[in-house]
């Protein structure tokens, strides 16, 4: 299977200090990949390399086998979508208008949205259970509703991979579960790949097929939750004593702080 995104020996530095260095990574269709690591371990930089916001100083980023730097921005946006931690809308747009923005990379310079684009946007909203919001102003939505709308916009892009940067950090338990069930469903049913950056180790353990654990800008461990999440690795990377047991329902590793 051809990977959607590939990092080869990727490195990026701010000034003289490397934030990420020597990272090799493939993102495959249908997988949910979690990126874990403490603050400053290079998670966000890695995500920005994957979405082309930053260009690596060393190594290369490939989008479906083609070098990111040779692609036009619009071409990248047809493959890679992003949902940020928080988005602020300065001007007023309706929810439907926001989701239709996801069609931008598929439209010509002067082209307006066609009926087909509307259908795609409506389907995306339906998938994120946000259809009843379509006429509402983006300013009126709660945090959870807004994240669902932005996820719908990412889906409307019809990308191969969605990058999520702490998408639920401002959401309560119910919305968190809702968003993650939704994302998991998308990877299963549509073969979409998801790369998730999070501080929430239990959540990542619960939902992700594969985990990359970063320490000081390099990959410390990579593998299934069972392979990556254990007391030794967590203590080595997060420098914090923990107890790891298993979730009684899912059997996935679960982390507890030692008092």
């Amino acid at each position, binding site marked *: 299977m051809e990977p959607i995104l590939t990092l080869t020996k990727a490195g990026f530095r701010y000034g003289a200090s490397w934030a990420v260095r020597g990272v090799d990574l493939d993102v495959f269709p249908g997988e949910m990949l979690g990126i874990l690591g403490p603050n400053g371990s290079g998670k966000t930089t890695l995500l920005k390399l994957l979405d082309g916001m930053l260009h690596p100083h060393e190594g290369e980023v490939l989008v479906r086998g083609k070098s990111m730097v040779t692609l036009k*921005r619009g071409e990248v946006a047809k493959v890679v979508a992003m949902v940020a931690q928080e988005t602020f809308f300065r001007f007023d747009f309706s929810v439907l*208008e926001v989701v239709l923005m996801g069609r931008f990379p598929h439209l010509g310079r002067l082209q307006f949205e066609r*009926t087909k684009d509307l259908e795609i946007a409506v389907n995306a909203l339906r998938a994120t259970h946000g259809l009843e919001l379509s006429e509402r102003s983006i300013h009126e939505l709660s945090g959870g509703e807004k994240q669902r709308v932005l996820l719908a916009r990412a889906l409307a892009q019809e990308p191969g991979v969605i990058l999520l940067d702490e998408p639920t950090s401002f959401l309560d338990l119910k919305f968190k579960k809702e968003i993650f069930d939704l994302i998991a469903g998308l990877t299963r049913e549509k073969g979409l790949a998801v790369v998730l950056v999070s501080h929430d180790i239990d959540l990542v353990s619960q939902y992700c097929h594969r985990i990359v654990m970063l320490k000081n800008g390099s990959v410390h461990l990579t593998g299934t939750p069972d392979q990556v999440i254990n007391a030794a690795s967590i203590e080595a990377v997060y420098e914090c004593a923990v107890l790891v047991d298993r979730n009684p329902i899912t059997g996935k590793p679960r982390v507890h702080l030692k008092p």
Partner: protein
Amino acid sequence: MNNDPLHKPPLTPGRVFRLSLIMAFLLLLVGAASLLIGTAEVSLHKIAALVSGSLGADDPARLIILRIRLPRIILAGLAGFSLALGGVVFQALLRNPLADPFILGVSSGSAFGAIIGILLGFTFSVGVPLMSFAGALFAVYLVLSLGTRRMGMESSTILLTGVILNAFFTAVIMFFISIVADSRLHTMLFWLYGDLSQSRYVSLIILTPALIAGSLILFSFAKELNLITTGEEIAFQLGVDVGKAKKTCLVLVSLLIGLVVSFSGLIGFVGLIVPHLARMAFGSDHRLLIPVASLGGATFLIAADTLARVLISPSELPVGVITAFLGAPFFLYLLRARGSQWSRS
């Protein structure tokens, strides 16, 4: 025909065309009315005669309409159009609903040039506009080169550079104004508050094609502007070449405004109020906002300039006095009524 909003995109070319047509009709109506209004009496009958070609070549009405009012109304229209267009685009680019087309120092740069021109005794047909445009170019060059870092153009840096430049040029202008005591002082003050009485057809011939080309190019960036208002990183992720879009639009608007201002003087508030009204009435999609706000700006400025001509007739006011007099209280009202929507919730 299904009326469910989910069966039709929120914005179609038809809707943009229809609403633009309505605004254009309104513009023509106000323009025609303005042609009839003025210190000298010109009847509808005379205009009809002029159009049908039966008006005598030496009739004073011919001179008033063709040589005085018409070029002035057209200049007011072109200036209002550009200022509102510039306002819409700058507000989007800087993601700041309080931005106007003068915010980057174009205004004070061109004022600086114009004041020097007036001081040197240049005429309004060539010298003063040329000096003014040169001043505008100088200011834009300064803002863009000082405001551009290695990482690209950062909005807050550009804004701050513009503000500082404005302050500096204003000080220089005040210096010149305070050392001049003759009739040139009156000319300077009128220029600083917008003076459309110097309109000549030659300036309209320069302005019109520049404006048409500029507004078409800016319109082609409308979708990019929509995305940029939601954040530059987000626009980038959705496929916008943000650096290119920003640079093209900033330079284009600045050139356009510099050019217009060099003929019209500084007319404030049009570029702030009209885009706001348009946003309130028509939403935030720039594919609709650009045409309707521009046409609305033209209409508004023609109406304001008509007032400026007749309010203290036979004397005249600078049109900027009218726009500010109407604009400032209105804007305060807006800030009070809608302030919460602009602030971060």
